[in-house]
């Protein structure tokens, strides 16, 4: 048992080195931060503040949009990013971590050095999941920082969300990002090619979850099926933290069910990846 633990610990250290020195890891983190700070906060603020009267937006609408950006809403506002851009970035991170090993044919190095296949997978997951924690902090941190800037510009620094909401928002973000990261990792194992894994994941996220399920949302059957999809459950979990002033969406399922389904996906993606990795030949 201690030998297995030592093997796992050694593999984790190898994975940390690989991930820490890989430029794409930090580029993805930087994109997450810049997306929230520049596109979500700065751009929205500038557009709303400089909107010409002829744009047809009422004072009430403009006030609501600006309200989204104040510190009191930063957790809720950050969560709207997490289910869209956060999901995409986490999926790419997971796909890159696994499928690049096939592209570079380096998986055979890991598998022929000593650690078992499942140990290698477990160590990858053990390093990637904390990384999604860092990504979650970046999303929340960028939102908090940006809302602080907006709030100080507009004199709305008084109200901040309760600590429980911030902590809950962090864990919700972490869970959502972990699900999408593990989907990317699973697609990497399944398709054994980075481009295919990322393309398949993004097509699923954008076309299946984003378009098809949304377009036919009023259909009773689709609505019932949608309750088991990761994107729909992630969205439901974010809505459990309350509505943004500009939002009128209703959660499809309760927070408890959403968390259960998302945890289920975590286990399913890890389980199928382990099964495939253990059984399949390493031909590359």
């Amino acid at each position: 048992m201690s030998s297995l633990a030592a093997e796992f610990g050694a593999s984790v250290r190898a994975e940390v080195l690989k991930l820490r020195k890989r430029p794409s890891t930090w580029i993805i983190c930087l994109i997450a931060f810049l997306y929230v700070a520049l596109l979500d906060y700065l751009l929205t603020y500038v557009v709303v503040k400089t909107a010409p009267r002829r744009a047809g937006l009422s004072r009430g609408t403009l006030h609501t949009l600006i309200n989204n950006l104040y510190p009191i809403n930063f957790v809720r506002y950050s969560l709207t990013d997490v289910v869209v851009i956060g999901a995409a970035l986490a999926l790419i991170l997971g796909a890159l971590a696994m499928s690049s090993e096939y592209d570079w044919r380096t998986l055979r190095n890991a598998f022929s050095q000593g650690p078992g296949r499942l140990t290698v997978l477990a160590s990858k997951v053990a390093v990637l999941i904390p990384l999604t924690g860092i990504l979650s902090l970046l999303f929340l941190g960028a939102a908090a920082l940006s809302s602080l800037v907006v709030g100080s510009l507009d004199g709305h620094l008084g109200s901040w969300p309760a600590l429980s909401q911030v902590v809950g928002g962090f864990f919700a973000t972490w869970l959502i990002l972990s699900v999408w990261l593990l989907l990317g990792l699973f697609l990497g194992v399944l398709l054994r090619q980075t481009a295919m894994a990322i393309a398949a994941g993004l097509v699923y996220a954008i076309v299946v979850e984003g378009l098809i399920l949304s377009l036919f949302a009023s259909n009773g059957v689709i609505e019932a099926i949608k309750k088991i999809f990761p994107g729909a459950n992630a969205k439901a979990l974010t809505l459990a933290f309350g509505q943004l002033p500009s939002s009128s969406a209703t959660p499809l399922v309760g927070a408890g069910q959403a968390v259960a389904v998302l945890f289920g996906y975590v286990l399913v993606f890890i389980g199928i990846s382990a099964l495939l990795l253990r059984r399949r030949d390493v031909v590359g």
Partner: protein
Amino acid sequence: MTGDAPQAVIETAGLTKRFGPGVLAVDRLDLRVEPGQVYGFLGPNGAGKTTTLRMLVGLLRPTAGSAMVAGHTPGAPAGLAQIGVMVEEAVFYPYLSGRDNLLVVARYCRLKPSAVEPALSWVGLQPAAKFKFKTYSTGMKQRLGLAAALMKDPKVLLLDEPSNGLDPEGIVWLRQLLRGFAAKGGTALVSSHLLGEIEQMCDRVAIVQSGRLLREGPVASLRAAAQLEITAAPLDAAARLVEGLLGAAAVRVADGRLIVTSGTDRAAEINRALVGAGIEVSELYRRQASLEESFLRLTAEEGGPG
């Protein structure tokens, strides 16, 4: 196995790998490599050498048959801990330096980071250790692969075409390294299609073609038998005379010469008989065929290389 035979370090029995219904890559392969041997695994491209090596380290699962390496089934962590491997060309993370790539391997092998510098030094890569792997030449990549294989001080080396991309100096270095490794009791299985290299660095050789073992044995025994080559005039009369001495099966005419394939120890007698019959003998010599000729003859009999 007899009671006197040493325990095999690498042993396969009926090892078979089939990719789908149509491709039989390795066909009932029986190999036995004893401690302290540098064992050549020779065959043309597509003969099944790499597939066999991949099965020996557990990257591929055999369709049938079994294998044991260093006392363990292929892929078992305890066995892999004793095996240094380089399958096909050396591949590493392109964004990491040579040093960091070895550090990754060291961590997978549960070695101390201090194992990296000596490994870099063995293969002469210390000056380039800080450069990214993607900037390495083919020879440097190969040296890094060898460093990774040697770093854990293995008991068994499984090397696939290890001299690919190495310069002549590097090839000599590799040859010495393998001989030194075997002299210290290590066992190496080296696959190659470069017959000259195998001939110079190996004790025993297995020749494979289309996944099947054609011949196995010490290098010397696999060389084609020695033959006499005689240039004489008139050639027809010389051929008749030698046939009379040794039998028709022992003599053939090729490229304007007589080739005598048996009774090669009777050169003096043949020469005397030819001269005595008034045949002019301008050249008569005994030639030891190389492993390359044996290999080409064996593979040609089985349908030719490729």
